[in-house]
């Protein structure tokens, strides 16, 4: 078995096709062939408002079924807060009992003497997430965007989308993070470091107001702090104290100073949607996305991301695919590949601990 368990992409230039799924009520706000930026709204969808129920029988002091006949508004009517929904004259005709709307909204339903009013609806905006050109769209289904870009899919991310100028602080991967390197140039940019994210560095990024942050790794104990952070954060390797892969740092270095998009959307299964750094490129063509799925088998020369300590997140090259299973340090016998790391060292890695890199 040489099949990959998971797949991601770290590539200098590729054709990217992103299908942005729309909620069923989603309406595109773009036209075909329209160029879009990562943070452009490409569709909107209504979201339900708050609901309030008015018990007519109670307010009109009568039988609920009879109270329905006292309605002066109908299903579908727009009403304002305090507006009369139903009216009943008392038996002596001296007083008028009123049932009024508790909110601004629309009458959705009248049933069993109860009026359901839905408050003002909200709008969910769907962003392009990738700069490019709209190539297809369908109401309630999707908007498809294509672009040519450098694409770096990374281990983990949080915080959604960002678009800004990439400012790379390191030239080499490392483990020591100096937190005092921020200056005013970093404000509003997407900052990347080749070393782990620390609490001090994070505070510095918050103070200087960066738009996004890319680090090699961080301790998971920092996660609670991130809930208050208002910009997206991505880790290229994973959790722990790990230097950035040379290949990824090299790509970031190549595009240092360019506009980049971060898509750090959350996924319950990270193998489904890896967080992405997308760097649009105007020249170059690739149809890599259209490649047949059956090709994702490891071969000699194939690039792979190693997913086991101490090389977690490192990128290497398959040099050999042994026929026989081999015994790991843990005692398990597994099929795998010999991988040459960037240091020149060659190690045996089971297929389960390798991610196929496209």
């Amino acid at each position, binding site marked *: 078995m040489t099949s990959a368990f998971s*797949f991601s992409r770290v590539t200098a230039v590729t054709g990217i096709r992103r299908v942005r799924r729309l909620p069923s009520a989603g309406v595109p706000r773009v036209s075909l062939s329209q160029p879009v930026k990562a943070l452009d709204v490409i569709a909107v969808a209504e979201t*339900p408002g708050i609901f309030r129920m008015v018990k007519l029988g109670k307010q009109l002091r009568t039988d609920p079924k009879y109270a329905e006949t006292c309605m002066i508004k109908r299903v579908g009517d727009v009403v304002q807060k305090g507006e009369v929904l139903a009216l009943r004259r008392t038996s002596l005709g001296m007083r008028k009992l009123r049932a009024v709307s508790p909110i601004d909204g629309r009458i959705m339903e009248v049933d069993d003497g109860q009026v359901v009013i839905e408050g003002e609806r909200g709008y969910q905006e769907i962003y392009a997430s990738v700069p490019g050109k709209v190539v297809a769209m369908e109401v309630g289904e999707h908007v498809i965007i294509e672009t040519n870009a450098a694409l770096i899919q990374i281990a983990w991310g949080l915080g959604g989308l960002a678009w800004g100028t990439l400012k790379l602080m390191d030239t080499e991967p490392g483990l020591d993070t100096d937190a005092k390197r921020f200056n005013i140039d970093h404000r509003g940019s997407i900052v990347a470091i080749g070393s782990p994210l620390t609490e001090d560095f994070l505070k510095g990024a918050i103070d200087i107001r960066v738009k996004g942050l890319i680090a090699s790794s961080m301790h998971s104990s920092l996660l609670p702090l991130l809930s208050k952070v208002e910009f997206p954060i991505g880790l290229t390797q994973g959790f722990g104290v790990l230097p950035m892969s040379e290949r990824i740092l090299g790509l970031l270095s190549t595009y240092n100073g360019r506009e980049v998009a971060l898509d750090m959307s959350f996924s*319950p299964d990270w193998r489904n949607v890896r967080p992405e750094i997308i760097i649009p490129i105007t020249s170059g063509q690739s149809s890599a996305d259209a490649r047949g799925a059956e090709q994702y088998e490891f071969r000699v020369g194939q690039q792979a991301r190693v997913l086991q300590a101490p090389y977690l997140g490192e990128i290497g090259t398959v040099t050999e695919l042994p026929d026989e299973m081999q015994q790991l340090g843990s005692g398990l016998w597994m099929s795998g590949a010999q991988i040459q790391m960037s240091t020149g060292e060659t190690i045996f890695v089971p297929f389960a601990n390798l991610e196929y890199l496209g």
Partner: protein
Amino acid sequence: MSLLSNLLGGTEEVTKGSEVSGAILSVDVGSVYTRAILLDVVDGMYRFVARGEAPTTDIPPWNNVLEGVGRAVRDITTATGRQILDDEGELIIPESAAFLGVSCFTATASAGKPVRAVLVGLMPDVSLSSGKRAAESSYLLLTDTFSLADRRSPEQQIEALMRARPDLILIVGGTDGGAVQSIRKQIDTIAMACDLMERDRRPTILYAGNRDLHGEIETRLVDDVGVNFIAADNVRPTLESEQLNSAQTYLAALYHRQKLHSGGFADMGSWSKGGIYPTAHSFSRAVHILSELDEQDILGIDLGSASTTVAACLKGTNYLNVMGSLGMGHGARGLLASKPKIESLTRWLTYEPDSADDVLDYVWNKWLFPQIVPATKNSLEMEMAMAREIIRNAALSARSGWRGVQPRGPLPAFDTILLTGSTLAQPPHYGWSALVVLDALLPLGITRIVADPYGLAAALGGVAPFSPRAVVQVLDTGAFVDLGTVISVSGRARRGDVVIRGKLKPVGANQAEVFEVQYGSIVRLPLEYGVQAELSLQTHHVDIDVGGRRRSHKFKVAGGELGVILDARGRPWRFPRDAEQRHEMNREWQRSMTQEELE
């Protein structure tokens, strides 16, 4: 139409047809691995013939499980020469010639998105707890629960339902012939919320409450609102009784229906007479069959990547609990949800991690990369520490529903514990399987531990409705690996004191082997696989909880992969505070169980 589709289509009687007589292919699509199993008749008996395994391909770039299924099945073709798929990748069924196709195909799955569900009931400790247990029999994600204890107004409940966007609303509550008013109020809220939803987004309603209200609720929800309505037997027909089977079967059918919308599952479902059963459902059926055949109380643990299943047959009652977000990979984050102390993991290690962060980071990385396997001895120990805590938590949660069993305290006596899932059933050494399960569950008395390294249990559970003969015969011919009989003692003594003296005399041997066991140790007595022996034990300061507190015991035991195991660590035990002593203790236990020299 499959059995499960028929069930949702309202076909009352499920026709099983004649028993299958040829080769049977069973496929299980897990979150990480897709496994195929071939059962065939050899010398007049069904046997487990071959298996294939491949990564599950429900993720990009494949987004279609058939890729993985095809690879796993081709493994079987390579091993046996039987052509199972045609050139287009379609299953050849029925068997059209010798070694061409199969007579029966069954499918189980645990991969992919769970069914999003909202549970509605009355009393939290009565109907709602029964509803929760029914829900735990399948891969359901409970996003909200409504009950009489719910302080939210109907408006807020409607809003919550609209935002939850459930695929399913499971309504329980009310004993048969009991109160109806409170249920009616709940139904009014649900009807209003469903009416406000777009027609194609309305959830299916599974009603398993007071039978007297069935017709009224069906009219209210189907005629007035137009939702898809299914009625199951009341999960709580009386305050004292619980019947989950009917609701559980419908939940399995709903899981099958949801799966048909995922890439490749529809094709796979069309090959199968039964449909796509939740793996947990089939696993539970296998545990039940084993329990009936052996007339034993059996506990089954399936430790998966995304979820952990506990299936128990205890004193004639079957229990099934799926911990949907507690597992070794996708579900690893569930282990951290209860904010456990780091010591609950580090206490099982033979080394001191550099920091608490290292331990947490390991668990988080397992969640990021759920397929990874431990490459080093240290990572194997971390993995096994996680497994212990996951099993311990899963069993604690499951036993809260076992009748007559205290939520805390010793594990009830199970004759056999069946282990499946690659961490437990495919470790580097079976000593790990036994050690992990003994540490996690702390059984007392005499227990047989059995491993399922080929993932046969769920397959056999899936095959059972079509060929009970195949299931019985495959079990008879050694489907599982018997790790051995464990005798566990309770009580306290000083560490190092001799607490067991005994003799082991294999059948046919001239001499018995005499041994002593010290308190605080776990030892393996050599006895070849399948060989019967007489085991005589004299205990001092400790008890073997079998039929009173005798000091002298005689048992008939059979050898397993690990011979016979004597666990003289007592119940409960305390870990030494000193880290080095603790490490040495763990080294000793590991060495003893895996017979490996540790550094």
